[in-house]
């Protein structure tokens, strides 16, 4: 017990050192930095966009997924996904969160399954406050249409995300084919 008999100043110093150590541990090991938060949010969005082959036949699941996916977009957004299907070029576009929800709700039943993997993710913050970020990555989408056609498409994703209502949301999103004739 004699060993614990410290002066008041020493107690303060000891507590300060313990607090500083705990803060350092939290900062370096447990704190989620903004880049990680953006990447995590991106991956979460992809999880909601995916479709498992053994999904329910009811479209309720699709409605839920579409609504959840919509939450990843800002109320005013700019989505453009272009591609080719059966010789026709197409562009899916949406300018509001509601349009994203309805577009995805209509697209989802056309697919039996959809899985997306993201790679080469690069995040650059557009201001010092880290409230807006430019995100670029490559995505590989594989799945099957209701017609039984298997597809495997590589896309380059370029997006702008903003921190809004306590979450990172897409202000714009483009997904262009990695290789195309245009």
């Amino acid at each position, binding site marked *: 017990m004699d060993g614990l008999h410290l002066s008041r100043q020493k107690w303060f110093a000891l507590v300060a050192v313990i607090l500083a150590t705990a803060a350092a541990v939290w900062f370096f090991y447990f704190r989620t930095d903004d880049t990680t938060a953006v990447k995590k949010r991106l991956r979460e969005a992809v999880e909601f966009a995916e479709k498992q082959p053994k999904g329910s036949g009811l479209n309720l699941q699709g409605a839920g997924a579409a609504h959840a996916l919509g939450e990843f977009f800002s109320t005013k957004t700019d989505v453009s996904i272009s591609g*080719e299907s*059966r*010789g026709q070029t197409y562009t899916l576009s949406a300018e509001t969160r509601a349009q994203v929800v309805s577009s995805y709700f209509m697209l989802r039943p056309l697919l039996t399954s959809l899985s997306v*993997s*993201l*790679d*080469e993710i690069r995040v650059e913050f557009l201001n010092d406050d880290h409230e807006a970020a430019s995100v670029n990555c*490559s*995505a*590989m989408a594989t799945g099957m249409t209701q017609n039984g056609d298997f597809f*495997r498409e*590589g*896309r*380059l994703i370029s997006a702008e995300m903003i921190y809004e209502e306590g979450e990172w949301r897409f202000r714009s999103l483009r997904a262009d084919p*990695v*290789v*195309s*004739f*245009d």
Partner: protein
Amino acid sequence: MTEKKEEAPQEESSTFVRPPKKKDWRTISIRIGVIAGVTVLVCLFVFRPMVINGESMMPTYSSRGFTFAFLPYFKLYAPQRHQIVILKHAGFNTFLLKRVLAFSGETVEMRNGVLYVNGKALDEPYVKNGCDWNMSRREVPRGKIFVLGDNRSMPMHNHMGGMIDQSRLAGVPIW
């Protein structure tokens, strides 16, 4: 003296048959580890093994095959016309095997299956399956290259080819 001479060969033979000592196992393990580590690094960054899957480069490459990609190639050399290259598709596990046909700033056009680069028909002896593809004249944008596969027997919209970022050049197949 005679006794010593007789003992010597016995010692030699016994060293041959004895099981490895602890120290030897450690040495062997370290050597195996180093060899495995070097092999993994070489396979990841220098000669990456690739399984060829698809018909777009037939008959130059069969639909099922195997090769190694020499990854540092484009750090040393620029791509050449008609060269077969490996391109990053998306991520680090799927690549495209294509032939470079035009560079940024050049114009490309297809008329009845013949590719015209800067208005001149390109001689492509490696294309064995004729096609009737048509594509209006367009310029290869800055930072991109124009690539196609050798097999053009399918409809054009089913062929994965066209403009691609030059930064996606990953390497060349070694055979």
